[in-house]
């Protein structure tokens, strides 16, 4: 018998945001409040019909972020076990993205101050790193090996044990 009108009024308002490439998005105020940056803008009365411009967030990741915030805001408090499980499943599916989108989300969630999403993307990135050799990690993340052969040899020699854990990789580094 919870009163659904408790935090009525403002929270039903839709907040508009504009991506760096000019696309408009809308989300409930409660969803926008999950972003520290948007919350401050709303508090400072900067949210108007023209929309809050997000200069460093492109449309593609912004669409995802709006999706994330809307879902999480709708189920923010007093979750039943089933709802919590469902949210967990949503998160797991949500973050099944390629590395390009992952970088976008890492940067955008950090910029917008969406803590939950930031943690989710950070954990996903860490999970991708785990259990990989340095070379596999460079491939996964598109990183150029900028160590000189001498430096690389020294690092390998010093920490040889760490490269021999499960099965010895064909190349140590």
């Amino acid at each position: 018998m919870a009163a659904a009108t408790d935090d009525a009024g403002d929270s039903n308002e839709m907040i508009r945001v504009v991506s760096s490439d000019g696309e408009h998005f809308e989300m409930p105020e409660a969803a926008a409040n999950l972003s520290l940056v948007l919350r401050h803008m709303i508090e400072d009365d900067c949210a108007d019909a023209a929309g809050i411009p997000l200069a460093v967030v492109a449309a593609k990741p912004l669409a995802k972020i709006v999706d994330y915030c809307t879902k999480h805001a709708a189920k923010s408090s007093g979750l039943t076990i089933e709802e919590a499980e469902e949210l967990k499943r949503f998160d797991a599916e949500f973050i099944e993205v390629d590395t390009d989108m992952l970088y976008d989300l890492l940067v955008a969630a950090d910029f917008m101050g969406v803590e939950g999403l930031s943690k989710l993307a950070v954990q996903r990135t860490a999970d991708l790193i785990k259990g990989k050799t340095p070379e596999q990690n460079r491939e996964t993340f598109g990183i150029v090996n900028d160590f000189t052969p001498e430096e690389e040899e020294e690092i390998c020699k010093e920490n040889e044990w760490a490269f021999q854990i499960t099965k010895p990789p064909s190349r140590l580094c």
Partner: protein
Amino acid sequence: MAAGGPTCVDDISDDVLEMVLMRLRSAACLIRAASVCKRWRRVIVTADGVFLRRFRAHHGPDLVGHYHYVGASASDAAFVHVSRPVLVSSGRLSLDFVPDTDSWTIADSRGSLVLLGKRSERTANVYYCLEFIFCEPLTRRYQLVPVPTPEMKRRGKLGAFLADGDDELGGRIGMSSYRVCTNKTRLLSRIMLTHRPIPSPSGPSSSPPATAADAST
């Protein structure tokens, strides 16, 4: 990502990269990540050791296992793994690289280091050892602890144990950051004499340890 081109790994700030690397579970994962590129290494290995200290505070040490020996010498020691999955292959934990393995007995171990004492012919009891060597099986390095000072020799029973280094390497123990403590009363809190490595700005292993006398409570 604002101006031209998709976001790439270099667009991620050091702060965010640090959060990612902090979430790796094991030291082995972290070492391999630190070998990916200079930037990742720079975030992990800072001059002040802040990242490593925080990493250790978050995760605690990985317990690999124990040395178990029923014979009298270090060469009889078998390694019992407790981690699942096995973190380090058994061959990496053998003490066979220590010269004259038979004449040493295990006095203590801490972190990645093992302290060996030379058995006294009189009692074969480690507490009478007056000669010590410490080693790091993972990197197969060892170093003699210099012959105890006359003051140490005058003491009757000498217990010896390893303690964390002062503040290098994030305050943890390692080949360049350790203390070998001996005490007369065998009360661990009463550290009487301490061996420390000479702090060297770059090289970890080669400098001989200095001897310092601490009389603390």
